[in-house]
């Protein structure tokens, strides 16, 4: 472990959660309840809960495991904004929708599959709920991005199938406030989609600049920026300069290998003017990096400062995902998943001088 002296924060390990029998792909924090979900090539989803004791010490404990029924790897997860529904994206090309059944006493019981979304031809890579929970997006190696409308009774209606990318689509991410969808692909581009009320969903813009696969996307909490992590080892920050116009205003370098995951949270930095929150990135080099971003004016470049860095976070293994906890009070919590099958929870803590 290397902690540079000039870092003002450090990444403290809160929990190391084993249990997956194969590579841990992805994790998702429930936005309403203290639940953390992780998924794996072992086709299962594991749920954990966490709580703080009186002294602010966080403990994480295993809740239950869902053996999903997917026939292949569960690649990605997404909670609905209400926190009641979990979506699973699997290499078996399907999306599963999971809800907790009420038992006879009206108490939450087993997690049940309340529906499946079929349509992708090959491996489903990512899934995401829109900010109000009315829409669900998914993407696949079949090069398509699908948008589904969530209708009552766990039913879904297909709203659009976008065949815009020329290669495997790695990730989808919704704007935090508006119904704008972004996707990143093996074709090195990022595409943005919106709904034409007279017609179907369509691709409204394509962002080029990355020199290799775009693996991960994360919107800034205020929705004015989009971060992308790529196989070109960089994280790019795109500023919204028009309704659907974006411009790359910053390139974060430092990773020695592919950036598989980037996440953007509110963080616990000083909430002064221009404060944009914290970005964490991780990937093939096994290093988790945390940055704080600030804007001075919308015409100037962003300023960034690396808060901390943690090497060998999953020993020699690739890190597949890093995600900030979205719940109030827990904005300094980060989860990471690795090829070692381990799910780790971290807390970004100020270094006491």
């Amino acid at each position: 472990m290397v902690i540079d002296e000039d870092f003002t924060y450090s990444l403290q390990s809160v929990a190391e959660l084993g249990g997956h029998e194969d590579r841990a792909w992805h994790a998702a924090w429930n936005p309403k309840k203290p639940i953390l979900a992780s998924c794996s090539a072992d086709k299962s989803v594991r749920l954990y809960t966490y709580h703080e004791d009186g002294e602010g010490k966080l403990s994480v404990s295993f809740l239950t495991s869902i053996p999903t029924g997917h026939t292949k790897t569960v690649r990605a997860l997404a909670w609905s904004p209400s926190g009641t529904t979990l979506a699973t994206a699997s290499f078996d090309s399907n999306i599963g929708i999971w809800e907790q059944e009420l038992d006879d006493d009206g108490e939450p019981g087993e997690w049940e599959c309340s529906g499946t979304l079929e349509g992708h031809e090959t491996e489903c890579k990512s899934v995401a709920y829109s900010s109000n929970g009315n829409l669900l997006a998914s993407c696949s190696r079949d090069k398509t991005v699908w948008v589904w409308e969530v209708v009552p009774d766990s039913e879904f209606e297909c709203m659009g199938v976008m065949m815009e990318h020329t290669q495997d689509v790695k990730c989808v991410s919704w704007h935090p406030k508006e119904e704008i969808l972004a996707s990143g692909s093996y074709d090195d581009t990022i595409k943005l989609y919106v709904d034409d009320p007279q017609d179907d969903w369509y691709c409204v813009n394509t962002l080029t600049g990355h020199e290799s696969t775009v693996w991960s996307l994360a919107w800034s909490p205020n929705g004015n920026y989009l971060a992308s992590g790529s196989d070109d080892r960089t994280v790019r920050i795109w500023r919204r300069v028009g309704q659907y116009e974006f411009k790359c205003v910053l390139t974060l370098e430092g990773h020695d290998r592919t950036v598989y995951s980037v996440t953007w949270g509110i963080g616990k930095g000083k909430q002064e003017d221009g404060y944009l929150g914290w970005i964490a990135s991780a990937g093939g080099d096994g290093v988790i990096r945390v940055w704080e971003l600030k804007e001075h004016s919308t015409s100037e470049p962003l300023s960034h400062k690396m808060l901390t860095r943690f090497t060998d976070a999953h020993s020699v293994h690739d890190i597949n995902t890093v995600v900030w906890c979205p719940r109030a009070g827990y904005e300094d919590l980060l989860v990471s998943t690795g090829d070692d099958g381990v799910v780790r929870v971290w807390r970004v803590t100020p270094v006491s001088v």
Partner: protein
Amino acid sequence: MTFSGALVLTDLNDFITPSQACIKPVEEINKPEVARKEIEPGAAASEIMIDGSGGYYEVSQGVGASGGGKRLEQAQISLNDCLACSGCITSAESVLITLQSHEEVLNFLESNSKEEEGKRKIPVISIAPQVLASLAASISASASSSTTITPQQTLRRLRVFLKQNLGFAHVFDTTFARELALREHVKEFLERREKARRQAESGKENQEPDGKNQYLPMLASACPGWICYAEKTHGEMLPFIANTKSPQQVMGTLVKEWMGTKWGKRPDEIYHVCVMPCYDKKLEASRSDFYNEIYATRDVDCVVTTGELDVVLRDKGWDLSIPVDGEMDIQHELLPELIGHPGTSSGSYLHAIINHLKKTSEKPLELSVKQIRNADYEEYELREESGPVVFKGAKCYGFRNLQNVVRKVGRESGVRVGMGAAGKLGGRMVRKKDKEEGQGHKIEYIEVMACPGGCVNGGGQMKAVGGGEWGEAEVRWGNREWTKRVETVYWLSGNDEQLDPELLREIDGTGLGLRTSYRAVESNVVGLAVKW
């Protein structure tokens, strides 16, 4: 500047994505001999060599290896293989182009004209009305005059060109075949409805899992894009798809059997070309169901698209904007011409059923139409005046709407949706939900078409003419404004004259086969262990 349809094959978009890899060659190489070698411990390693002429040789490197090597069979992919797989329809341009292209037609016509008198085949060409609308809209948009050319004029002008310049003996449009297809379609719907009614009376609901008891909703069968997709990915939908042949294949039967008999010709003595708005019609024509084994001939020998016909016109220097003599007169060439079928520009399958029900109902029926989201999905209800709903049907165009129809039909009829793992997923909650559904009148018929906007917007149609006029800087296939224009032109022709009952009776009497069948294609692609 605009490109003609056929030149821009990369734009081809039938809304069914190409598969990642063609699996066909893999199936061919598993010879038992090779298999034995593989299990022998320490067997000689082998290498594949390619010689100058492109032949493949397996060369043994171990003990006793001789110089020559064994010539390997070349993997071949025929159009029929593609059809059986249908994974890469939209990307296998080269296969489509070489086997069923305008060049193939021209080559045939040339060699046919050199044959001796007795050996010559009769070349016949049948043109879909959507093709005429696309060409007419295209000429009207590029011509200097502001007059709009009708599909009828376009047909007359094409007829002169196709007969005089290319040597076709007969030039038809496919609306009479469509008339027969629609009649058969209605007949089949009534049969299915009756079976479903009897089944409901007997109290046995869809208990047989093999789909034998699944009759309604009946789904349209004219769109080959939809048929291919259903056979490949939604086998559970096949029992619902009408068995009535598409107008193209009815025309095939009409030309090769009925006309052939009239002319004293065997099916293989006629060469039948169809001009269609859609690339997938080429695949439909190559289905084994439409191949006559006795005479080794297809009902439709070759299908070309609107864009490809346009290329031929350009190559031969024929200008469709120039009128021909008598183009406004009524012409009768064996079959009645351009029969109008009011309803949709994709063939009015739903309307044919609605009209029949209205006509035969004892009480007057009212039709109400509900558009959902856009014109590509509409629900139609027939009800007795302030009475109950007696029929519910829908029109569903485009890949997105098709997904919802597949889900809806699968849910309402209780058949498993999809071939994937979903059968195993879906616990108690799903089953509980299923039971709660089923209130109200269920949809009994759906006119399904794979292209958004339907057949006037088929993948083989002319590209929009006139640049920015159509609301987009870049003119591409699928432009909605342009599609509307073609749709308008489509309705400019249409003959309302009563069909000759003698002719219909004569055709009925010959007992032409107007039905076909479908088979689910099981994918045997084993998912590779992909890490990404």
